[in-house]
């Protein structure tokens, strides 16, 4: 299972990096979305993997997943959205002011 998750993290990173290197704003934003998926999963995986052991205290459970990376990633996801919003609005602003959507403001 660990190998699968490591592969998925690598895959998402690779897709994200390739898209982030494109010249138009929209693919770059998609690339950043991919990278944030990968980063969130990566951070999450710092707590190692466990199946069926959510960190919700109950009498029947005998082990729990590490809650710290989960708390960290939870806010990271929400803030990631805010940052995506900020970047996309910047892209719109650039499009309005410069007349095109190239990341360097020139065709």
């Amino acid at each position, binding site marked *: *299972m*660990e*190998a*699968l*998750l*490591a592969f998925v993290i*690598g*895959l*998402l*990173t690779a*897709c994200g*990096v*390739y*898209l982030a*290197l*494109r010249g*138009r*704003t*929209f*693919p770059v934003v*998609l690339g950043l979305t*991919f990278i944030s*998926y*990968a980063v969130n*999963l*990566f951070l*999450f995986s710092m*707590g190692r*993997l*466990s*199946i069926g052991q*959510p*960190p*919700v*205290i109950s009498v029947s459970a005998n082990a*729990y*997943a*590490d*809650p*710290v990376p989960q*708390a960290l*990633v*939870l*806010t990271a*996801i*929400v803030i990631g*959205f*805010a940052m*995506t*919003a*900020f970047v*996309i*609005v*910047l*892209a*719109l*602003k650039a*499009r*309005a002011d410069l007349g095109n959507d190239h990341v*360097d403001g020139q065709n």
Partner: protein
Amino acid sequence: MNLFFAVLTPFLGAVLVAWASRFGRSHAAWAAGGVALTALAWLSPLLSQPFAGTTVVQRLEWMPSVGLDLVFRLDGLGLLFAGLILGIGLLVILYARYYLSERDSMGRLYAYLLLFMGSMLGVVLSENLIQLLIFWELTSLSSFLLIAYWREREMARMGARMALAITGAGGLALLGGILLLGEITGSYELSVILASGDLIRGHSLYLPTLILVLLGAFTKSAQFPFHFWLPHAMAAPTPVSAYLHSATMVKAGVFLLARLFPALSGTPEWSWLVGGAGLCTLLLGAVVALFKHDLKGLLAYSTISHLGLITLLFGIATPMAVVAGVFHIINHAIFKASLFMAAGIIDHETGTRDMRRMQGLWQFMPFTATLAMVAAASMAGVPLFNGFLSKEMLFVEASEMASQQSFGWLLPVTVTVAGIFAVAYSLRFIHDVFFGGKPLELPRTPHEPPRWMKVPVEVLVLLCLVVGLFPAQTVAPLLAVAAASTLQTALPEYNLAIWHGFNPALWMSVTALVGGVLLYLVRRPFSLLHDRFEGQLDARRLYNALLQGLMVIARRITALLDVGSLQRMVFVFIGFALLLGWMGWSGDRSVLTGSRPLLPVDAMSLLVTAVLTVISVAVVILHRQRFTALVLVGFVGLVVSLIFVKFSAPDLALTQLLVEVVTVVLLLLALYFLPQHSPVESHPLRRSRDGLLALLVGGGVGALAWAVLTRPHSSIGDFFLANSVSGGGGSNVVNVILVDFRGFDTLGEITVLALAGLAVYALLEKLHISGPSQNADGRDWNWDLHPVIMASFTRLLLPLALLVSVFILLRGHNLPGGGFIAGLVTAVALIMQYLANGVAWTHSRLSANMHPVVGVGLLIATLTGLGSFVFGYPFLTSTFGHMKWPLVGDFELASAMAFDLGVYLVVVGATLLILIHLGLMHGKEPVRGKGGH
């Protein structure tokens, strides 16, 4: 605590005054005066203690865990300066009320002045040197604001920048010096440092320490060669010059010399550096002052000269010289502040400061002229005025030094020459302005200023006279305690009297007076010579060249690094990160796979991974068709949240799902205004290069993840798991961490979220772009704005979704959920109404203004944290209890839930703020599309 409040009062008062100025100019003045008096009142119960020989030290615990306290100290020297700051401050406040014209903002000047007053009080009343430095930097900053008060004037901005650059650089050096002092003595508190003078002087780091501290003092007190900022600071309003640039701020440097005198003085290095700088400054300032045509320029250079005089006295470093230095601090503050005020009156009444244009003002303002003459006589060192007393003490010290050094005779000679120039420029200030013919084409006809504008000058001039005539009965006790606390030893025997008999000092005084008058009479050719070469021998040129050079270097470095293309920058950045990662790994050569037992792979996970791989690669291949890519990304997000579910993170799965939906909405909103396709631009070679980099980075990150995942694990999570129920009152540990254990972090995070929302709003405010009137295939948009089935369904869904969100919010402490998730559910439910029913329908039922929601959310979260203060616990301590609700049963109520409510409101507010305003961006335009039948 009194000292702390005395320092705090002006800072709080600055806000009060800025507010009070809305009600009128006099209100602002009254408020400012009241603030200064309040600060004085805080000090008054302690005033008797320094006179009784005790040093008041008051400590306020701030961060005891790292040994940082707010410590204040009141001794003779601090008392003297606090008196100058508050006393002259009050007079300046009165004066400024009449000085400023109707157009100038009263509140701003007073607010800045009070900021400065608080900072300066902090400097002179600090026991801890680090704390002193903080206030020291605050004086630089507030002085920057004050010099640039008339911000529309180029000269004011330039002068303010220069003053900030020089004094700021000096502050940096001082920080270094203070850190070294702390390193040598093991403490930053003055009582320790002042007592370990021998240790400091004997230490190998003494010389660097001394130089760094002196750099701080010299830049602040405008000592040669850092003197040039002071004349440029004269672009400030005159009350500011009177306050900062004669009486207080520039004295901070000499205050520092006096403060650290017991710790640093007594070595040849001290004498040469301090005495040398003082002597140069004394002479240079006096000479240049004579030839300045600007009234305030003359006073500025005279101030430089007098500061040099004080520095020189501290450099001579005999106990008697120190007494003289402290005495001259008092005298100079009094006469120079009054002279600046007089210059301000003249400027105010005539509209010019150029001495070549004004003569014979005596006939217009005899009273002001009399006041100015007394103050100028004091500045020149004429007997019977206060300036004479301390200058005479300097002459005594200088003549006594003459016999002790081989070139010792230079000292009395130079001092006498400076004295001659001082007399000459004082005479010029009086004669050129008030006598000598009729004024030449003044901008307005002068007359005596308003009654209350003269009062501050009268008070100060009266002090000049009283101190000059009866020194022993007036200033002596204050001088004694101030000098004693400077020396930290017993005072030498001295006698404050006007007549000391026929000694060398008397002859030096006589020479200065006679020579000064003669010099004034024959000054014309020298003056012409000065005018010709003015500006050529100026340290400012060096400063400007230095600044230019710095900018050129900065631009070159930027040009070297920034190629102006994001693509290339990102490529280099990622490539470099890859290189660093590779170097780190190859340097270590540890095994990639750790020892942790692996989880078995099941078929379903394999299948989903395979599908995810195909879809992700498809996104990359199809990314030019933007809408398709977006739909595919929706699937990737879904799989990511399934991964969270699979690996025991239900909270994350819920959050990811919701964020996925709002992200899709966000990107769709933006995509409408962007091209639907990306053109093929980059060369195939470049694409394969990017692809290779992407594969390498992906492989590297995957390998890193693998290496971590297979290694054994220990975490602080166990603590949270063990204490969640007992300490936080909730069984959902992730939520308890967010709202309780690490609540402060969460407060920061929702603040970021709120800021991002506001920033997006601000960016969108002036943005107008129009979307296409046809879709990507060239067909018109559908005419049906809100298909009725969709609208009906979403309306049905709204109460259900809101119910779910309330449920998730309430139970979040114990089961997956909480403020973040509930907030997103509510936001999505509301967004759905905008989607299906339109803006008009939704706005007629719900206020669109989300700013208050964000604000209230932040307020609730912060207040919950502050609430724990009320019960005497640290910030954000939570409490909880159980209660029985009808129907619901046992229900746990934790104070952290209020915090979670704050989180909820911020998330709802920020998300809607972003999405709705993005959607409303073109709301004012008519409905597009030809299909609007």
